[in-house]
């Protein structure tokens, strides 16, 4: 395969795409180059001639490369690849892991050390469910990438979109719950306002119940939105770390093919 390194390098330089996408294209071309080379060898050609013929057969023109670039430049993918291409150094990754642990610690403390769940809106349960799902999906992925080191290209990105999707769903459900709570409270807004005005102007003890209702809604909603935001950031960090690992593996695969 080393004989194709200069050609693959040239293709790599000419493809104006995020590296993960570029790596996948290079891997595909490299595999076909190898097959063509083997075919020409089996037809009795010398190694040098077989290499030349295989390269001629691939013949990726500027027009073809531009077409490939245009095909792969979807806005969403471009955005995702750009986001995950940022954290590269060991220190950056350590910083992210520390932030993740910090978030995990305060989330667990908030949930278990107070009456958080009983005080929060019932909308918190689907949010917890989705967060746990994201964690359950992530654990085997972490195990495969970091411990088992199962780096098969075809399986690298499996479940990553699902983790990203759970993060988005988590946020949507949480915000929707918050808005619903706001709506329910809002439907009594006039009552609240009248009572609040009454409390402020008369300062009667009997109105404490109404003030309590307002406070209960505030606690319910703020607990929900707080948990939603923390868990979404937590899922986003998990996804970010996994995507960085995957990008790094893909880059390494491409580097091997390119002889770097």
């Amino acid at each position, binding site marked *: 395969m080393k004989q194709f390194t200069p050609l693959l390098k040239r293709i790599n330089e000419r493809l104006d795409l995020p590296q993960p996408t570029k790596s996948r294209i290079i891997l595909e071309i490299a*595999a076909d180059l190898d097959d063509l080379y083997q075919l020409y060898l089996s037809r009795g050609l010398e190694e040098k001639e077989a290499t030349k013929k295989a390269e001629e*057969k*691939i013949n990726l023109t500027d027009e073809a490369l531009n077409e490939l670039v245009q095909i792969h430049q979807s806005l969403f993918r471009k955005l995702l690849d750009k986001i995950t291409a940022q954290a590269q150094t060991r220190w950056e990754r350590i910083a992210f892991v520390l932030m993740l642990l910090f978030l995990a610690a305060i989330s667990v403390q908030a949930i278990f050390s107070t009456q958080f769940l009983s005080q929060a809106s019932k909308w918190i349960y689907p949010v917890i469910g989705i967060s746990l799902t994201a964690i359950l999906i992530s654990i085997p992925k972490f195990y495969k990438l970091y411990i088992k080191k199962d780096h098969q290209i075809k399986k690298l990105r499996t479940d990553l979109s699902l983790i990203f999707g759970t993060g988005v769903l988590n946020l949507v459900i949480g915000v929707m719950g918050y808005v619903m709570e706001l709506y329910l409270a809002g439907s009594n807004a006039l009552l609240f306002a009248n009572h609040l005005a009454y409390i402020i102007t008369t300062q009667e003890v009997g109105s404490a119940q109404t003030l309590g209702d307002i406070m209960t809604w505030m606690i319910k909603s703020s607990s929900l939105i707080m948990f939603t935001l923390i868990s979404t950031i937590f899922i986003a960090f998990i996804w970010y770390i996994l995507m960085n690992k995957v990008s790094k593996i893909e880059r390494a695969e491409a580097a091997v093919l390119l002889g770097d």
Partner: protein
Amino acid sequence: MDIPIIEIPYLTKNCNEILILAVLFKEKKHGYQIALEIEEKSDGLFKFNHGTLYPILHKLEKEGLIKGTWKQKGPKRQRKYYNLTAKGKKYATAQLAGWEKFFKEFFDIVGGIKI
């Protein structure tokens, strides 16, 4: 089923697409196999440079007409195999009807030429 019109300005594009879809109709193949099969079956009439092949394959994949999956071949080598999706099969069938119509009309006009 609406029969698509094969437009003259996009003749090459449509021809390349239907050739690839036809080769993938029965079984999954990777890029090199697709090019080779088209070339061999046509006795070298349709020579597919891979430079032409990849943009078409990737475009068809983006459109959901074919699906690419990585498979292990041998101890180390990975291959990206393409197979036709249900949407792709439907599209290919419609395109074939379009080509049949195209050739019928073409030969209706040129078929009368006698040397």
